[in-house]
């Protein structure tokens, strides 16, 4: 049992947790923008899947991982626009339309893969970038400073998102239309325009999250996300609709997964309990969510379409 508490195991768990957290983090940050504006998008997983395929396919054809990331972002942007049109302009029931977007992404990403690629073909992955000096620090270096550029960018997106939401006029408008759209409208804020923008940011980040996942793995296959988009939605609640809270949630989920994997490798978890251990990330996340959700309040206008005068 002492093997669990070695520095090598700790380094492996933390580094793995960070890698596993990144796609969740990006998708959750995007969903936060949408939800803070009052729009729930249950189609995040579908957008991630199409973003993943787009990213994979672009890298397969060009060999350039950054073009792949761009492709994921563009696909996410268009799906974000489509989601905005459905949820904001057409005022469709957000739960149903979100599931529709998910199923569309699930089916279409597989269809495109089968027709355009077929058999899985490995692609280039993001190269690791060791941060000078910091990466040489014992233990801390391998944990935090020997990742790919997208990992650093994903964590840099946290303060940026926090700043946008809390310190800019655009962020204030997002919060206003999510809490009290009638008042925001009275003050001249375009509720529809703000929600379109927030939802499109959400779609773009979900597409990027999918692209990051596929390019990091260097492969694509059907249902690559394995439900990560739905976990990302849960993390928005876990994180109390704040980027920092979401980061902790994503890291917790990643850390539990990484720890379970490491314990299995070390054969510390008895084989009979392996199935139970595999459920641990989901169970702990649900429990944590239940505890956190009691203390937070969702945006008052979440899922409520806005019509002037109603």
């Amino acid at each position, binding site marked *: 049992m002492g093997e669990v508490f070695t520095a090598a195991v700790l380094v492996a768990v933390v580094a793995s947790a960070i890698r596993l957290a990144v796609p969740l983090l990006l998708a959750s940050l995007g969903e936060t923008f949408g939800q803070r504006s009052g729009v729930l998008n249950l189609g995040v997983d579908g957008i991630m899947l199409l973003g993943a395929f787009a990213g994979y396919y672009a890298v397969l054809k060009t060999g350039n991982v950054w073009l792949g990331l761009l492709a994921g972002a563009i696909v996410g942007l268009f799906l974000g626009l489509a989601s905005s049109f459905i949820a904001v302009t057409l005022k469709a029931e957000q739960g*149903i339309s979100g599931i529709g977007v998910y*199923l*569309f992404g699930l089916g279409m990403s597989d269809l495109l893969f089968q027709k355009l690629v077929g058999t899985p073909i490995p692609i280039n992955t993001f190269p690791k970038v060791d941060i000078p000096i910091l990466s040489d620090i014992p233990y801390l270096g391998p944990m935090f400073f020997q990742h790919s550029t997208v990992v650093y960018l994903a964590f840099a997106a946290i303060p940026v998102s926090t700043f946008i939401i809390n310190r800019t006029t655009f962020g204030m408008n997002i919060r206003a239309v999510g809490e009290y759209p009638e008042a925001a409208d009275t003050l001249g804020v375009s509720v529809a325009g703000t929600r379109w923008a927030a939802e499109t940011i959400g779609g773009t980040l979900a597409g990027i999250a999918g692209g990051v996942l596929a390019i990091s793995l260097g492969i694509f296959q059907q249902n690559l996300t394995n439900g990560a988009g739905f976990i990302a939605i849960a993390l928005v609640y876990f994180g109390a609709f704040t980027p920092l809270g979401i980061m902790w949630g994503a890291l917790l989920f990643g850390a539990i997964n990484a720890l379970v994997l490491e314990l299995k490798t070390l054969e510390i978890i008895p*084989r009979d309990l392996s199935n139970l251990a595999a459920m641990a990330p989901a169970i702990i996340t649900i429990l944590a969510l239940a505890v956190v959700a009691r203390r937070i309040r969702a945006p008052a206008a979440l899922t409520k379409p806005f019509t002037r005068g109603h």
Partner: protein
Amino acid sequence: MNRITKLAILIAVFALVAAACGSDSDSGSDSGGDGFRVAIVAPSASNDLAFTQSMVDAVNSLKDSGVVSEVAITDGTFVPEDGATAIRDYASDGYDLVIAHGSQYGAFLPEIAPDFPDVSFAWGTAADTYGLPNVFSYEAASDQGGRVMGIMAAALSQSDVVGIVGPIEVGDAKLYVDGFKAGVLVGKPGADVPVNYIDSFSDVALASEAATSLIGAGADVLSGTAQMVVGAITVAKADGVLWFGTQANQTSLAPEIVVASQVYHWEGILEEIVSNVKGGTLGGELYSITFANGGLVIEYNDDYPLPDDVRELGDNAVKAFEDAG
């Protein structure tokens, strides 16, 4: 019905159509085979370089040779209930043989098969026909190939740590993992053989991290089974760690590091099943592919410079299984 409701229905229909498109329902044309129609329902893509592809290739081979006339495939039904719906649909359509290619579909057969007494069902990998007269079951003795490749892995390992990435501890996956581990320990009794079952057939990211964890534990040779191992193979490739594949030839995924693959050839037992069905026996028998009946084959990667003595170890192990029958 108001505008919003109409829109919601429209979106749902659109999404379902797209989702349905994602599953490759492919009906081949008649090319002989006495009008014998076969349908396959499988959990992953037809070209997954693993479990599903092994069956699709086998049935298409029978079609090419005129044993069957029509092949329909519904792949990607990773949700078992979706698979059960497809199985029932094919039976309703009057297919002569419906292959439920996945142990997860087995639970549905006792309720589906009795409703279609004139249709034959084949289910695998499993060794249970539920006592039904129109259900065959089939399995792969994947432990045989696992043992052969485990022996070679032990010989190639410098660190004496050989890791295995598993999906869920059932069916031929468990057989393979157990066989591979036993083979490594035959080759090097003191070797460390950590096994990491990620408890998912589809989580590529988790398989990738499991491989990273095993490499971190010192493994310089890896193996794994099921469709999610593509993630583990890319990690092995990036770290220059050797890989042994199973179910289908996985060389194309990483020619630099794939040493060999155990490939399933279901053609032989499928031909027997088709022959039985044509003769009026619709089920009740168990089949297994082995080295002895040609259902298992070790395919080597010609681009990997495998030392002759290691190749000889593998060939001898295969011959021992063939001789034992």
